[in-house]
């Protein structure tokens, strides 16, 4: 009897398991989703936001067959297309974008957000709320501000990389650029009194392409950093000034080249192999706030057309001094612009003072943007040039020797 019961029970189980054979009805296969690789956010008209998404096309070489109802890029071999929609908020724009696509938008692989300049100037707080709240987003995604429209940046079909987003993230890894991701943005919004932070500033390659590139390589250009205060963009630093900003924030990477400014148009160029910047805050007895900036870097001689002899100890010291002056100039120049023109602390001075002088910081915190302008710099720069490269004398000097 007992065995009979077991058999009946097992048979029932078998029949029950047949129900499962239909598969999962909620399945979401790769060919049901539209993978977003980059997103652009623009100001459309007043109170309207335009969300553009660069979407990956899975099939290879299906030229001219991009569809989706949105605006497509006019390239033959692009493996992505860009679709956009306008709404009163990011959420509504995304909803409208979804209406036009046959596949479900998938944000899990989105690594890049580009804000159009107008949107950035109006404030990115509302968009950040959506981006961070929506569960599919990644905090690792990089953030950029585009000169002009983000939509145009997305539309670029670069020659060297598969799509414009890949090109952007590769660009960020180079020594002239930097990366800022969502996590860093949120962290700085929370931790700085003025909600101040900086985001890489890029422009569409075509703006400079005709002048600087033959055969249109179609890339986006890094052109400094944009500055944010109260989550609104208030200005930007150009590439030269950004260089000083990188020195301040310990963002100088190896392979950076310092070209020294020489009186008679000669060149001394140094290829950096490493650099470290440390900030040490100090408050003097009479209440002066001083930030000591200590830069220690090392680099090898890359080009020397001047009369300075690397091998002579005295002249080598002079060369080092010239390099130090160059870095010092670059730092003071940047700080002057940040302190006097924009009055925004994107170099983490506030954070450093907070860590060392919490009591004094508490008092100053509400008026930090005024106090920041008064902070004095104390520079301690040391650029070491230990190796001359393959030549020990410049060609001009060698001629002198053979005479």
């Amino acid at each position, binding site marked *: 009897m007992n065995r009979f019961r077991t058999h009946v029970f097992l048979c029932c189980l078998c029949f029950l398991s047949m129900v499962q054979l239909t598969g999962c009805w909620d399945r979401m296969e790769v060919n049901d989703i539209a993978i977003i690789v980059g997103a652009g956010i623009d100001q459309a008209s007043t109170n309207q936001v335009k969300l553009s998404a660069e979407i990956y096309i899975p099939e290879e070489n299906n030229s001219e067959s991009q569809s989706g109802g949105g605006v497509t890029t006019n390239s033959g071999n692009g493996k992505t297309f860009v679709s956009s929609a306008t709404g009163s908020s990011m959420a509504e724009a995304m909803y409208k974008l979804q209406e036009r696509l046959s596949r479900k938008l998938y944000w899990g692989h989105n690594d890049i957000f580009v804000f159009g300049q107008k949107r950035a100037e109006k404030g990115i707080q509302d968009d950040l709320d959506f981006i961070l709240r929506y569960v599919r987003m990644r905090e690792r995604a990089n953030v950029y501000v585009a000169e002009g429209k983000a939509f145009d940046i997305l539309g670029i079909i670069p020659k060297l990389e598969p799509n414009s987003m890949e090109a952007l993230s590769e660009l960020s890894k180079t020594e002239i650029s930097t990366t800022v991701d969502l996590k860093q943005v949120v*962290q700085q919004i929370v931790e700085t009194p003025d909600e101040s932070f900086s985001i890489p500033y890029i422009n569409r390659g075509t703006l400079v392409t005709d002048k600087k590139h033959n055969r249109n390589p179609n890339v986006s250009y890094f052109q400094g950093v944009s500055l944010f205060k109260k989550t609104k963009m208030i200005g930007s630093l150009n590439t030269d000034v950004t260089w000083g900003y990188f020195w301040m924030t310990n963002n100088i990477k190896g392979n950076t080249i310092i070209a020294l400014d020489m009186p008679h148009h000669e060149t001394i160029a140094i290829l950096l192999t490493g650099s470290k910047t440390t900030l040490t805050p100090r408050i003097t007895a009479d209440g002066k706030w001083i930030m000591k900036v200590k830069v220690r870097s090392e680099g090898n001689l890359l080009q020397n057309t001047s009369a300075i002899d690397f091998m002579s100890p005295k002249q080598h010291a002079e060369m080092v001094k010239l390099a130090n002056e160059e870095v010092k100039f670059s730092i003071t120049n940047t700080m002057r612009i940040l302190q006097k023109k924009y009055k925004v602390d994107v170099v983490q001075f506030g954070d450093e003072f907070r*860590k060392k002088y919490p009591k004094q910081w508490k008092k100053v915190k509400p008026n930090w943007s005024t106090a920041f302008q008064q902070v004095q710099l104390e520079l301690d720069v040391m650029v070491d040039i230990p190796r001359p490269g393959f030549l020990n004398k410049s060609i001009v000097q060698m001629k002198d020797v053979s005479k």
Partner: protein
Amino acid sequence: MVQGRISAFQLSILMFQLILSSSVLLMPSISTALSGKDMWMTPILSSALGFFTIWMVLKIHEISPNGSFLELLETTCGRWVGKCFSLAFILFQIHIVAITIRDYGEFIVTNFFLKTPVQVIIGAMLLLCAWVVKSGIEVMARTGQIFIPVITLCTLVICILLIPELDPTEILPIFERGAAPIAKGTVVVAGWFCQLSLILFILPLVKDVKEVRKWGYLAVTGIMLMMLIANLTAFLLMGESTAFFNYPLLTASRYIAYAEFFEHVEAVVMMVWVLGEFFKISFYYYAICKGLEETCRVSKPEALVLPVCVLLFTSTFWLAKDFQTVGDFIAVSGTLYILAGNLIFPLCIFFVARMKLRFKMNQT
């Protein structure tokens, strides 16, 4: 319910997971919101309460007849009043575990299974727990011996992978806002530690009670260390913005990226959470069944398992209708309630029982 017996070591493993399963994910956010930059101190300070709970539970165990807390209640307060107290204590535990289950369901539904009804997630978990509770405490302990090291290791691996991203200077300045915020955070974390008093139900089933003190203290130390690691990882990575995320460690794990292909590892966090909560819920579930069996003198304890399952399932939805209520309860009002039920109530009973004993001794 097969009775079975476990060793003090097995109990300590279960205790370890009992506290850590929900705290590792939820705590960094809550303690940052309350204590700011000093949030990393809260686990260290509140572990004192953990040690105290173990000490108290063992003291209670010493004076209890047959080692059972519920019988102590009956001898101290009289049969019927004692039974009422027992039932109230069990109901309190049902309330706490219902919150835990709901929290588990909400986490899965918000972050991973967006379209699945929360009832299915919770129902499936409760059925699994019912199975392990029916098989007895020994099975649960042995399952724990296999899986809890895995869970702990996964949590640690996530923290280790994040080391390059961490900024140790984030915790400076220490004592930025003074002692009051630290105290607030400590009380909330203590709300987790005092849940250790749940072992009052299980102690009669432990083979070597003498060893429980040593292993219990070790478990508390382990819990403290894991909490510290989780807190520090989240905070050194995200700074004060930790308070803005509901599940900071999940956010942190999403941040892991190595060599452009080793990323998207948050599924590990889900595994840690599901397995961890499985042990926490089963432990509570078993304790509740055991308590009901003792109070109502049930001769066939297996019969209790399914009704309790249904009760837990429904009470999960009675207690709160949305995430806001659950979150508010865990972070604010719930802590004092949990402390009162898990710590102050047993402590009062302990003192009353001690006085009664001394009184009796004086009489004779």
